[in-house]
């Protein structure tokens, strides 16, 4: 890959354009605590990349650094071939650029984080109308299609607090889809759900994977990760300990830590 890039600079540009997300040598410390110790990963367009690992290994922090919800200490973040400009201290150099990039990354949180003072429909049209400048009528029409797709068309006028966690998370996925995201970031989307509600959310995500959405998915659902992911990354102690195709990572783990981890979660 490297050789190819040096030999044919033009092809390197194409290869970059094919990448939805590229993270290079990402470091992040909270005070003295070094949480990410040089993480590099790439998601090509249409890839589903699953990130697994023990609690506190830095999975969420890594995901949140991608759209700068956390400020990286150092490293490079490239979204759709565009590098997010960083100052020496890791803070974003251009608020405008960051806002533009963020408005194309659909993030789904563990705690849903729907806006509680807005109905599901209002939640879904909020960003298209107020950030992307889509007309209200057009956004609402699209939002209804999306809510229908996640099975919530009849709840469009309901406020989030009146719904189950599974319904809220499906609405949050509709909100993410409404921006027509170039990639989606999922941070343990089913971890806050009662067991009987996990399935309905996984069904929606499985559906998105099947239609070729680019996704970075932090999850504890190992069976699901193995089923939908094109590539699996195992985090331990702020580093990528092992990665590869799902059958290899789950079926033939090499690192001792990963073997232990898989035993502990199965």
């Amino acid at each position, binding site marked *: 890959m490297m050789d190819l890039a040096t030999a044919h600079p033009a092809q390197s540009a194409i290869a970059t354009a094919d990448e939805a997300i590229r993270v290079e040598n990402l470091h992040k410390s909270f005070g003295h605590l070094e949480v990410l110790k040089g993480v590099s990963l790439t998601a090509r367009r249409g890839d589903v990349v699953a990130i697994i690992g023990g609690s506190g290994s830095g999975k969420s922090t890594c995901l949140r650094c991608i759209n700068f919800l956390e400020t990286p200490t150092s490293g490079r973040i490239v979204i759709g071939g565009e590098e997010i400009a960083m100052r020496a201290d890791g803070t974003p150099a251009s608020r405008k650029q960051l806002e533009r990039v963020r408005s194309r990354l659909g993030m789904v949180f563990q705690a849903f984080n729907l*806006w*509680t003072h807005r109905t599901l429909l209002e939640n879904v049209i909020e960003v298209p109308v107020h950030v992307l400048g889509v007309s209200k009528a057009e956004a609402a029409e699209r939002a209804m299609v999306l809510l229908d797709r996640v099975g919530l068309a009849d709840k469009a006028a309901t*406020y989030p607090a009146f719904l189950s966690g599974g319904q809220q998370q499906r609405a949050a996925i509709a909100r993410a889809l409404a921006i027509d995201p170039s990639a989606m970031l999922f941070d343990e989307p089913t971890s806050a759900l009662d067991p009987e509600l996990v399935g309905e959310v996984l069904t929606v995500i499985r559906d998105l994977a099947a239609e070729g959405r680019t996704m970075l998915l932090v999850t504890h659902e190992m069976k699901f990760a193995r089923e939908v992911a094109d590539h699996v990354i195992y985090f331990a102690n702020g580093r990528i300990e092992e990665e590869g195709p799902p059958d290899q990572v789950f079926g033939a783990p090499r690192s001792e830590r990963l073997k232990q981890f898989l035993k502990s979660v199965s």
Partner: protein
Amino acid sequence: MIELLSLSPPGWGGNLLRGLLHSLEIAFGAFGFGLLIGLGGACGKLYGGPVLRDLLAVYTTVVRAVPELVLILILYYVGTDLLNKASEAMGYGRVEISGVAAGIWVLGIVQGAYATEVLRGAIKAVPSGQMEAARAYGMPPFLMLRRVTIPAMMPFAIPGLANLWLIATKDTALLAVVGFNELTQETRQAASSTRAYFTFFLAAGALYLMVTLLSGSVFARIEAWARRGQPSLRKAAT
């Protein structure tokens, strides 16, 4: 007694109502001005740099420490004096400052200090995920304030703000010390001219009570609207 309160002279009812109108005008202006200061102050305290935070801490501490009557005297005389000096320095001569504008300015500064604390507390009570989602989707800071932070903090702020509004309506009475014709001042004039103290102060008291009752129902509606996304606590308790 009825003649004394009749709206046209020789009755004093018209004067009382005019006084009430002035009081409400000032209370409304001061409350609004205080809200603006409070919103800026709360954001400054939460998101501002160290210098701004220190300045705001001095403002809220001093204003809340000094008795309101003293503050009103200070702000009124210092404010008008400074304004006149500035205007003379620029060659415009002395300016006539309207009582309403002065009242709004003076009470607004007092209200602003309390509103800063009410709104700061309310913003801090909003679950951080609400703002985080806004940031994650690329909302610029001002849009986020308008579309997420302010509406989300409203349920926490309304009770405190309702208190502030009632205090504003009653603090207008303190402006009598600088000769402003609000309700209390008008009442005193009517009472001393006619010697019917009981009648007039009872009437004024009734007017203040009506304002309070009406405000209560208005704020109850605003609060119900602000909490539209939250299941009712009463239902949850049963």
